[in-house]
């Protein structure tokens, strides 16, 4: 049995630090401010790029998502950890993905972006972080009371290849239908002409960095939700060290590059409604906890052949389309017209899933 240094506490902390540095560099090279890496935002942009929603400012086939899955896929193949598996309540995981995205888009970011927003000085993210903590804490109560989505079983190799192949297909579309200056459509793809969807690092930079992140995260089992869950559930700081390293490295990078701008008002791609920043992340945090991983971890697991995690990711992309089509997503002006209803319904669905999967004693 070979020792995997990356999965040691020093290893996961190093990976967290590397991710923090690379995320701020992505911002420096063109990604939106405090959004160097945001799995929820980037999956939302992919939904827009494919025309699944038509919010003009968030349409771009983000190569980072493809790189995360493919980097993890390569690592898993290389280190013989590619294990096609699935069948642990797949539809429930899909719905949790939908709900997680709806909650995340009320806050405007996933747990990765919570940390990057904090590192950029965005005080509104404090409420998002607290919401995330509360959501995950509720999730741990379910686990303590026997919550389970059931066992996975081994599946045919082909099923483990599906999401990596989908990502290769998306990458091919991005390469075939390149953005055209001043045009919102290129072939079958949609592109933002302004707003966060129009802000992106060059394709090859995004791809190389995300392949590195995917590779390292698969080896280290980096998970932003697991980091907080393990502290609450086991008083264990192992994964948390990765999260703190990400925050510290991103903060230092922002200070060095002059992109640390503390305050609440006028923060990039953020709103100031504290209650809804908090509540949106309660919903998202609970859904991530019940599904067993943050949105990044779900991508890395799907690269290892976990088709349930792949379904969660597809659920998130669906959730983004629903969020924007139904007016659930927030904008810098505040929450969407149906954002409040979305939070209540999302919480209701998550709690129902939690109570509905307590092991019968």
């Amino acid at each position, binding site marked *: *049995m070979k020792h*995997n240094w990356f*999965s040691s506490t020093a290893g996961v902390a190093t990976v967290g630090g590397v991710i923090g540095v690379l995320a701020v560099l992505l911002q420096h090279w063109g990604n939106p401010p405090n959004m160097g890496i945001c799995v929820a935002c980037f999956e939302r942009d992919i939904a827009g790029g494919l025309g699944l929603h038509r919010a003009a400012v968030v349409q771009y086939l983000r190569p980072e998502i493809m790189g995360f899955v493919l980097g993890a896929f390569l690592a898993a193949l290389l280190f013989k*950890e590619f*294990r096609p*598996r699935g069948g*642990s309540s797949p539809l429930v995981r899909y719905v949790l993905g939908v709900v997680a995205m709806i909650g995340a888009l009320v806050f405007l970011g996933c747990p990765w972006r919570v940390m990057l927003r904090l590192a950029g000085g965005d005080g509104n993210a404090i409420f998002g972080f607290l919401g995330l903590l509360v959501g995950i804490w509720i999730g741990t109560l379910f*686990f*303590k009371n026997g919550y*389970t989505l*059931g*066992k*996975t*079983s081994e599946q045919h190799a082909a099923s483990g290849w599906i999401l990596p192949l989908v990502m290769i297909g998306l990458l091919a579309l991005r390469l075939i239908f390149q953005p055209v200056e001043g045009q919102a459509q290129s072939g079958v793809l949609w592109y933002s002409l302004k707003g966060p969807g129009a802000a992106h690092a060059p394709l090859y930079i995004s791809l190389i960095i995300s392949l590195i992140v995917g590779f390292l995260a698969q080896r280290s*089992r980096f998970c932003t939700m*697991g980091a907080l*869950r*393990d502290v609450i*559930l*086991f008083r*264990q700081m*192992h994964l948390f060290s990765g999260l703190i390293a990400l925050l510290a490295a991103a903060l230092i990078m922002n200070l060095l590059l002059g992109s640390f701008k503390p305050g609440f008002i006028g923060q990039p791609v953020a709103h100031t409604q504290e209650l809804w920043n908090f509540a949106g992340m309660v919903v998202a945090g609970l859904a991530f906890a019940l599904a*067993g*991983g943050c949105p990044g971890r779900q991508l890395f697991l799907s690269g290892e052949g976990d088709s349930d995690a792949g379904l969660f990711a597809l659920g998130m992309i669906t959730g983004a389309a629903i969020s924007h089509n139904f007016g659930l997503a927030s904008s810098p002006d505040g929450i969407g017209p149906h954002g409040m209803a979305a939070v209540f319904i999302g919480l209701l669905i998550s709690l129902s899933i939690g109570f509905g999967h307590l092991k019968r004693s």
Partner: protein
Amino acid sequence: MSYEVDARGLSCPQPVLMTLQAIQSAGNDDICIRVDSSTSFENVSRAATGKGWLIANVEQNDGEYRVMIHKGFA
């Protein structure tokens, strides 16, 4: 007598939760934990050693792990 924890097919945090529950109820008995991913193997090993238990033996076969742990005596 030895306890057996079968956490195959389960994802985190369940293998660790099951291991910690077994540690609580095993007294001085050995525990055999069965998992089927290297991540779960790492997680249960970390949890057990964190509680002062020792990894006595690990058998790996076809992606499955049998981890024998016993209570450490300081």
